[in-house]
């Protein structure tokens, strides 16, 4: 099967999740005797394009149209679906990021393709085409069989390994045929916090709850996060009270994350909070109440006062990294 991977980029730089998607797609292509084809939309230089080949892309299709410098889902979906058709792709791999999610459904509808999102397994092609995905905000998994000729998989970031598999891929530069009708949406302004790791992509997340008493104490979270190269997060009440921005709220009604390490400080561990974080590989809970429900979901726990415990941990983390 030919596999088309949407190689998401920001300002000409590929994301870690893009390399995960390339490795994931390459595995499917190899198993089923097809090619792994990367589709890159927007301006990326050759040195960066070549990175995709080191993770297994057999072919790189670069659509360098000025108009694609702004991310407009209608136009992106149109171009990706066209490439899928031209390349005879039967599987499309897209990272389940905000960007990926914005186009996955549109691409699927264009190709009349069944779609699974939040995918956490390689497809089982023994009989049919089956993938596992997260459902009920991390409380369960579902095995989904996709029966359409073309399949769209939106894969969960930080789930699949990036594997070296250097190939001598051709870079095909193509131009897309886009008209004004493909750009009804007008991007007025983009504001990205630079130098900060998006929560969904962070390998380590340090999160604070109401136990921290107020925003003035958030240096405890930030200092540890900085020392570990982690992203900060928080519980729902913390963002509701505007101690922290809404974009940091994790849980069932916030962002669902699955970092390698989740450190929860002063968070009780309510079911709605756990739903969004319980897929983390290792969980550390710090809480002064030994009965806090978080300890049931955690791998490591410290029963103690965050104000006494955190400075020690921060100091040790700083010492480790220096």
């Amino acid at each position, binding site marked *: 099967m030919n596999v088309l991977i949407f190689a998401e980029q*920001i300002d000409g730089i590929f*994301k870690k999740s893009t390399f995960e998607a390339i490795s994931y797609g390459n595995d499917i292509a190899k198993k089923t005797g097809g090619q792994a084809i990367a589709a890159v939309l927007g301006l990326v230089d050759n040195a960066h394009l070549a990175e995709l080949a080191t993770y297994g892309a057999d072919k790189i299709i670069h659509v360098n149209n000025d108009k694609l410098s702004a991310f407009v*889902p*209608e136009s992106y*979906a149109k171009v990706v679906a066209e490439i899928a058709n031209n390349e005879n792709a039967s599987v499309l791999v897209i990272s389940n*990021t*905000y*960007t990926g*999610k*914005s186009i*996955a*459904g*549109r691409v*699927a*509808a264009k190709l009349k393709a*069944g*779609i699974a*999102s*939040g995918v956490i397994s390689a497809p089982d092609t023994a009989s049919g085409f089956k993938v596992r995905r997260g*459902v*009920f905000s991390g*409380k*369960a*998994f*579902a*095995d*989904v*069989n*996709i029966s359409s000729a073309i399949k769209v998989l*939106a894969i969960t970031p930080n789930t699949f390994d990036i594997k070296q598999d250097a190939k001598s891929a051709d870079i095909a530069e193509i131009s897309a045929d886009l008209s004004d009708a493909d750009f*009804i*949406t*007008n*991007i*007025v*302004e*983009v*504001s*990205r*916090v630079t130098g900060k790791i*998006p929560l969904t992509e962070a390998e380590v997340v340090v999160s604070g709850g109401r136990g921290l008493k107020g925003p003035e104490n958030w240096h405890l979270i930030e200092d540890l996060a900085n020392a*570990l190269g982690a992203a900060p997060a928080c519980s729902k009440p913390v963002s509701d009270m505007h101690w922290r921005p*809404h*974009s940091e*709220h994790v849980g069932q009604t916030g962002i669902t994350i699955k970092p390698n390490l989740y450190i929860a400080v002063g968070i009780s561990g309510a*079911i709605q909070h756990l739903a969004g974080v319980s*897929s983390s*590989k*290792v969980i550390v*809970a710090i809480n002064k109440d030994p009965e806090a429900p978080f300890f*049931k979901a955690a*791998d*490591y726990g*410290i*029963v103690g006062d965050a104000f006494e*415990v955190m400075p*020690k*941990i921060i100091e*040790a*983390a700083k010492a480790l990294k220096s």
Partner: protein
Amino acid sequence: MKILVCLSNVPDTTSKITFTDNNTKFNTAGVQFIINPYDELALTRALEITEKQGGTVTTITVGLPETEPSIRKGLAIGATDAVRVNAEATDAYFVAEQIAAYAKAEGFDLILTGREGIDYNSGQVAGLLGEMLGLPSVNVITSIEIENGIATMERDIDGGKEKVSCKLPLVASAQKELTEPRIPNMRGIMAARTKPLKVVEATGSEKTSATVAFDLPPAKGGVKLIAPEDAASLIGILHNDIKII
């Protein structure tokens, strides 16, 4: 202004998730169902818009008769009328097709969905629907203002925010922050009883996917406690023993 809000009926956030029939069916015994929280935000924002500018808010739900309490709740919150497509919502593609089939003939100015259903978390209905109707789709909006037929929205993007403007009609999906959910009052609840709830049959279309089994995450092995006075040793454990930092 004619607005369509896609309402899904989902298990309450406190529900314990279990399965029956050899792990092939979600066990609804003892589970309380609610309007999907993001759809509640979409509905509330739609009402705020029509209250200011005039218009109607229709809700649409793809679901069997047991979804009607949530649909009535939507009417009690303030929707003008409701549509139920009488079919089990098996996957996002099917749901979007049903909603598109209904919306095609109606000429809505704005179609709002939630960011994702807290049950099946696909987050795909807005994009699918946009493409099926030939309309733009703007995902995860945290604000929307409409003036002279143009919607100005803010939306979440990876690592930041984006401001977009778009001519109506369009599809958008609601993210938290869009507004505060409204609670139905007594008058709303009374009025909801007599508001129109139309039931339509599903259009025949081939399913593109099917859930064949469910599974629960493996149980945790139990917490290893570190004494608070040895808190600093946590870093050593994470670095040396399990090599995660």
